[in-house]
């Protein structure tokens, strides 16, 4: 195993304070430690490597997998149970239903495994999921040392600050620790660290420098940057491989890679096209032209009446109810906007977002905007339901669905305009905001 300093970069102060907290093997440590910081700030990695290199008895559980507390508790116990076995060996499964059992079994297992004389570390990754489980879980884990009367430390890893965890009934306060974001220098150092074996570290570092120059403004996520670095590196090496430039020819290499990275920022970084497609593009050296991103396929083909239902829903969502008369009655008289504009309506409805409307208003508008007569057939109603399942409309409120359900229209103005254009309906003329 490499010394810790060589594997864990830029986290020296955190590691040293953690080491200080842990103390010697048989020392009692702080009962619970809460570590927080943005994603990809090295929390899990530091914890894992630290515990592994110093060969401390530990258990790491990711809470996102544990949708019930039972799975969480069983996973801790079972991992603990196989602590000193090789992976393949099959040990009997421990079942655990409640925290009470857990405390009992925990004592038993630690004794059996012979680790009761040293500190056992339980790491709960993505601890924010604990908040959604039973209410007793978090307080109990916080004072597990006290409950079990064993030398145990629970470490919580989360992206959320401790204040958002604290139950209102009060609890044992953990030792809170913050992992700050990596600075650009840190990122440079860490990313350059894992250079490919074929190339020199300097060469790779220069590449990382260019990469960060492009991406640092939009992305500081270490994982994402690593991913991007790996994706684009082959392109960077291309001139070198072809013999057009040598490794020191930084300027030439920069000119080659810079537009490429800019393009990557607009496409693969946004997941408009997938990384495999991106790699294929690089290999084939073809133009982006024929490959369209995900958002290029925004158009949805809808049945004729569905289009009108959507338009009607949009109108109902963004026009005040009072104005329906003005828009949909033939002889509404000359009502000008200023006449019936109330003070609070001066703000654009489009800035306020869609408002809920009852089903009958939707249908009334639908009947008046469709040129031909529409019979209220079951198909029309099922189309409304279909639009809800397609998430173009949403159902608001759940109390009594028989008695006038209410909907909201969730599509954007651009989308509905595109739809309206296909049926020759000038939607702008019917929108209160654009009057």
């Amino acid at each position: 195993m490499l010394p810790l300093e060589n594997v864990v970069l830029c986290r020296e102060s955190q590691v040293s304070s953690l080491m200080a907290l842990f103390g010697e093997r048989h020392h009692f440590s702080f009962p619970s430690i809460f570590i927080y910081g943005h994603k990809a700030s090295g929390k899990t990695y530091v914890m894992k490597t630290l515990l592994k290199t110093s060969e401390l008895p530990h258990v790491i559980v990711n809470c996102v997998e544990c949708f019930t507390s039972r799975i969480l508790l069983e996973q801790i116990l079972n991992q603990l149970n196989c602590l000193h076995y090789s992976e393949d060996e099959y040990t009997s499964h421990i079942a655990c239903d409640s925290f009470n059992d857990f405390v009992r079994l925990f004592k038993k297992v630690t004794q059996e495994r012979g680790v009761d004389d040293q500190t056992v570390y339980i790491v709960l990754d993505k601890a924010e999921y604990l908040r959604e489980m039973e209410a007793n879980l978090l307080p109990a884990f916080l004072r597990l040392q006290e409950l079990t009367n064993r030398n145990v430390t629970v470490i919580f890893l989360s992206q959320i600050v401790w204040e958002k965890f604290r139950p209102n009934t009060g609890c044992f306060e953990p030792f809170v620790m913050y992992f700050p974001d990596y600075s650009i220098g840190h990122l440079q150092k860490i990313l350059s660290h894992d250079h490919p074996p074929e190339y020199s570290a300097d060469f790779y570092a220069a590449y990382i420098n260019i990469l960060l120059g492009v991406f640092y403004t939009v992305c500081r996520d270490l994982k994402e940057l690593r991913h991007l670095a790996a994706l684009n590196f082959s392109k960077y090496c291309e001139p070198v491989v072809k013999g057009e430039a040598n490794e020191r020819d930084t300027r030439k290499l920069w000119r080659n890679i810079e537009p490429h990275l800019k393009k990557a920022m607009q496409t693969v970084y946004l997941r408009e096209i997938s990384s495999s497609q991106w790699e294929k593009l690089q290999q084939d050296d073809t133009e982006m032209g024929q490959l369209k991103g995900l958002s290029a396929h925004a158009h949805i083909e809808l049945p004729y009446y569905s289009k009108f239902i959507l338009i009607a829903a949009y109108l109902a969502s963004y026009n005040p109810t009072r104005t329906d008369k003005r828009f949909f009655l033939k002889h509404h008289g000359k009502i000008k906007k200023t006449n019936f504009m109330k003070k609070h309506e001066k703000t654009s409805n489009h800035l306020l977002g869609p408002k809920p409307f009852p089903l009958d208003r939707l249908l009334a508008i639908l009947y008046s905007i469709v040129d031909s007569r529409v019979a209220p057939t079951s198909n029309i109603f099922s189309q409304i339901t279909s639009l809800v399942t397609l998430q173009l409309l949403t159902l608001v409120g759940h109390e009594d669905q028989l008695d006038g359900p209410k909907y909201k229209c969730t599509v954007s103005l651009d989308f509905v305009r595109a739809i309206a254009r296909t049926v020759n309906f000038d939607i702008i003329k019917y929108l209160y905001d654009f009057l």
Partner: protein
Amino acid sequence: MQKMAATLGFLSVDCLVSFHIKKNYRKFQGLISFLIFSADYFNEGESLSEDSKLRFDTCQLLWQQMKSEAEELQEELNKNLFDKLIEFLEKSHLEFRKKSTNWNYQIKSREIPTAALVLGVNVTDHDLTFKGLTAMLRDTITPYVVSLQAKECPDVKHLLQKLASQVMGCHIDMESTEEEEEECVQLSQKKMHYSMAFLSTWYRNVTQKKGSESVNKKITSSSQWKKSPPIVIILKDIESFSTKVLQDFIIISSQYLHQLPIVLVLGIATSPIIIHRLLPHAVSFLCIELLQSLSCKEHLAKLLDKLLLTTRFPFKLNEKALQVLINIFLYHDFSVQNFIKGLQLAILEHFYSQPLSILCCDLPEVKRRIHSLSEDQCESIRRLPSFMRYVEKQTPEKQVASLTNERFLKGRMERKSLSLHIYHENFFIVLKCLHAFTSSLPKYPLGRQIRELYCACLEKNIWESQEYEPALQLLRMLAKDELMAILHKCVEVFRSSPGKQLGSTAEKLKEFLAQFQSLEESNEEENGSGSQQKGLQKTDLYHLQKSLLEMKELRSSNKKQTKFEVQRDKVVDMIDNLVRKYLFPPDTQTLYEVVYFTGAHTLREHLNAAPRIALHTALNNPYHYLKNQALKSEDDSIPNVAPDICIAYKLHLECSRLINVVDWSEAFATVVTAAEETDPNSTASEEIKEIIHARFIRAVSELELLGFIKPTKQKTDHVARLTWGGC
């Protein structure tokens, strides 16, 4: 709002309706399958049992043929999509299979290969596609295919449980010899919760145990897959999944990606942007590739071409019935499956309601059946309007013969059914040619799709329609290359059609093509009318227009036709002649009723039901359904013998949004007791009053159950109406 309602006529909203709409489709399916499997339905009320049996068999045979044709088409259309998907699957997890130690692979973050299938909004059709997809994947790639629906997965727990049980279920299925020990494991597993960790251990065990021996003999794909077949997870309706469930699931599976080769297939009904909307964070764990299925409109066009625009199947729809089916498709659901169901209903209805549909079968079979027609059937043929029209045109002797002599009639019939067949053959060829000509015209005067043209031709003589002449005018202005392309298409139409009826025309077309080609070779470029640029001087608008007009006239009069133009006119004349000769509507044909289904109304009633209107009719006019003479009322008055709920309903129609229950009850009592002249002071009347009161309360609560009224807190002793409009 009230006024608006008034202008829009009687409109009302029935929320009840939207409640049980969802079941509608299935109900309808149930009905169809009930009808199809009960031959008794045909016998009902028919005296000729063997005849109806034969009709039923014919109907079923025909339907089976059409159905398998439709299924074949579906398979063929899906093939393209499936091939792409398989290609995608082969590519994915390459490194996983190779156990690569490549630097690039090590550094890159693990992404779940994801195929986004954009299938269009016709959700009802998706099931079939997914069924085909699952079967295909099971056969070629992996036994571990899991399909999940949003409604089965309200949370991560259920999702993982479903996933695990399906994956392991697959395993059990393919293993014929189930070992006992495994069964024990299964049992113990049932007790514990399924989790991804558990699944991955299971997967490792299974694949390791299998080792080199192939997992499934059927699987024929690359050898690497045999060692570790991927787990394909199909999420059928991505739109309905909740963000949280999906996101958690993807985060969990991405953590196990180095142990489990998971591939996601997302079924998308709307657009791929939904992925970004649903998964704002987790999208970075996915490596998404987009696959698009054929649009449902194209699917429909192909289906029509296979099922209706062909002489293979004798059954045809008339203009109105076809229009009903197409309208439901275009206006409401875009569902090809529903269209096929509608067609099935039409076939069923046709064979049920038309006794002569017994002759709706293959040509040789028709001949045979004509000879065995009974006297009654001959009589009903004589009564056919189209046959009567035909007889009227005959000479008197022949008229008498065909009305009295059975053998003569049968001979005639045979000839006529043959001519009907030939008519169809020619009809479809010419129709396709005409469509080839007109589908490329600007603004599509005769419709862009062949179905529009077909409907127009079914309705009336197409050459009499307003759009026909302008279309021909446009055709006379086609450029050479366009015209040649069209002619090539037409030749293709002739070549693919089985009939040899229009052989000479095909020859003629080829001749034209050859001529155009030779024109091209000789390349005689006409200089045309030369440059007449007089150089327009600066004048006022009036003079400018005048001079322009003069120039135009000059040009048109001077212009002599080039060879190409002469030829082009000939081609257009030819197609015009063909159209006039062959494209007359089918209802002019004798025996038209035998093969054409005309019950558009029935179709509409069954397929595009209006429950709200039906409910209103039932309550407003109980006679319509109950057929009780006592209920018959000429005017709008309410007969007191009508069911209580009808009386209450009629009374409530007269009210505005809020109904005073006391007044309503009074009115109800008045109506009910109107006829019964009872002594108001007798002791019995008190009892009767109570009974009437009870009846009223029951009627009101029934109305509430049906969703017409609801209790309100706005005013005491009032209920609110949920519908508007009224008498």
